[in-house]
């Protein structure tokens, strides 16, 4: 194979000579007339537009899990992230409800739409985590849930008559809430992240960051980063999955300076300088959630949603899921798990 099209010995590669001025739509609005630019333009770059249209049409799934002790503002933060009432807090949950005796897994789904793009968002809450007197192994139900989603996907994938689009319930992102003690991580934090960073993308966040001054915040973050490093915990974005130099530079900055994001969440609006902002009102001032001088919520939001959403899904699919799958295949002697073609499967493919 040689790079670039070659006309003949005398002509230079024509594609490169073309000065393209006008934007070419996916399907030309009018039949193309003859003009000089057509001599050199094929149109393969329209495949990007074709893919974009496909993404817009099919919409996409995103599954985010929140883990942390009760009262750290998990539900509020998720609502703030997606500017919608999508968490457990908003679907009939009662604040005075008793803390469950064991860790429960509660998944709530919503379809939200923005700019023509449809997202089927599932928020997975884990009430009861870290709230007991004895919290030994309280991460196990969570790990089990995550693996169960991988198993579900695997079973569908090896089916003989499989669905065109396999429903994706796998956890793409796990926000782990660190209590803003200002001292260090707690043993439970370390244990959880050690175990779970191997099966899911973990993004640690410092909750209720409005209880720390700027200096306290900076120091705490440094200490947490150090502790994570010393304990070999690879949070997302993991160093080993940086695809190229561009990714590495971008992610290094995030890993070494921004994370863990110190956040504040709120679903209440206040008027500040003539604008409606989400915030928390105190006698000494209004904490503006999306104000970068107040807290890092906007950084977290941009990171998870605006820049790394697709990557979170890809790392889940290409790394974590594949690791699970490889282990299952190996355990099974290299064979995929047996599936029985059930009535349900059969009908859904007719």
């Amino acid at each position: 194979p040689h790079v670039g099209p070659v006309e003949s010995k005398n002509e230079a590669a024509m594609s490169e000579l073309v000065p393209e001025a006008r934007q070419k739509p996916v399907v030309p609005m009018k039949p193309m007339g003859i003009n000089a630019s057509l001599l050199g333009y094929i149109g393969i770059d329209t495949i990007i537009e074709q893919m974009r249209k496909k993404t817009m049409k099919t919409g996409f799934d995103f599954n985010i899990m929140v883990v942390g002790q009760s009262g750290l503002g998990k539900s509020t933060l998720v609502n703030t992230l997606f500017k919608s009432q999508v968490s457990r807090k908003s679907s009939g949950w009662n604040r005075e409800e008793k803390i469950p005796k064991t860790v429960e897994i509660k998944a709530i789904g919503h379809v939200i739409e923005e700019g023509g793009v449809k997202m089927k968002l599932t928020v997975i809450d884990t009430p009861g985590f870290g709230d007991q007197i004895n919290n030994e192994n309280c991460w196990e139900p969570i790990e089990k849930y995550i693996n169960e989603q991988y198993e579900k996907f695997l079973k569908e994938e090896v089916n003989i008559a499989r669905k065109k689009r396999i429903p994706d319930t796998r956890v793409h992102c796990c926000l782990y809430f660190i209590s803003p003690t200002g001292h260090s991580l707690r043993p439970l934090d370390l244990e959880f992240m050690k175990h779970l960073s191997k099966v899911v993308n973990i993004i640690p966040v410092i909750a209720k960051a409005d209880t720390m001054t700027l200096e306290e915040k900076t120091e705490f973050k440094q200490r947490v980063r150090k502790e994570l490093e010393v304990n070999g915990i690879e949070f997302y974005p993991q160093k080993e999955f940086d695809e190229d130099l561009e990714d590495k530079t971008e992610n290094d900055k995030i890993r070494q300076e921004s994370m863990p994001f110190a956040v504040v969440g709120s679903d209440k609006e206040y008027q500040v300088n003539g604008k409606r902002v989400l915030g928390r009102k105190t006698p000494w001032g209004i904490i503006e959630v999306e104000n970068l001088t107040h807290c890092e919520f906007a950084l977290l939001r941009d990171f998870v949603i605006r820049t790394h959403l697709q990557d979170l899904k890809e790392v889940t699919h290409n790394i974590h899921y594949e690791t699970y799958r490889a282990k299952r295949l190996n355990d099974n002697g290299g064979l995929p798990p047996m599936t029985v073609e059930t009535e349900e499967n059969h009908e859904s493919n007719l």
Partner: protein
Amino acid sequence: YIQSVFSCQFSDSAGYVGFANLPNQVHRKSVKKGFEFTLMVVGESGLGKSTLINSLFLTDLYPERYIPGAAEKIERTVQIEASTVEIEERGVKLRLTVVDTPGYGDAINSQDCFKTIIQYIDNQFERYLHDESGLNRRHIIDNRVHCCFYFISPFGHGLKPLDVEFMKALHGKVNIVPVIAKADTLTLKERERLKRRVLDEISEHGIRIYQLPDADSDEDEEFKEQTRASIPFAVIGSNQLIEVKGKKIRGRLYPWGVVEVENPEHNDFLKLRTMLVTHMQDLQEVTQDLHYENFRSERLKRTGK
């Protein structure tokens, strides 16, 4: 699931979350990765297949072409020759593989000539199935045939028996796009007549050629209809540049005039090229969701997995 539709404007307004940016994230990754596409060309020798491919992609895929004489062709069986070229346009990289099938229809007895082709297509499916079921799936290469241009001779009265047999054997394995070659040997009337004959015969024999998907709301409905109505595309290819009205264009110089490849009034070349490049994604999708899945379920049923 609770339906909560939450539309926002495109600005950092109070309600804007930002996941509308997702298609851009996908786009960025795709551009980095680049695309692969495999196009197969099938047709008798001398129908202008290679010239057409070169014209389509502005490249010279067959620089040292050796054309065997008739005596050599007697013994020849169908070969499969795959050439890969990397084309870059506006930052988008396409790894295009053209699979040629020299020898098709050449032999005196062409009874088995498409067996080799079927085997090739199946082999690519088999390989993909194997890779997909394996342990290391990070870098699966997709060599499956996404589209097959089938060249129909303009010299006959419609489809030949071989054409019918081939298409019937392959319409369940690959997207078939029928193409009338060397269209400059026909007048416009003859062309229309031939197209109609071919379409009638295709329908008569229950042959399933590639169907263009319906136009999206923002696409030109009329243009799509016009494209559909032109199938099978009657095309001309050329490797030569001729000067017409001060411009250099691809064409064929005859004593009675110049046939311009990219002139929509002369032939359907542009329609074919537009159709191909604007449907690359769909062609891949149909290959994956229909042809490959059919192959896979047949295979798995057979081996009793």
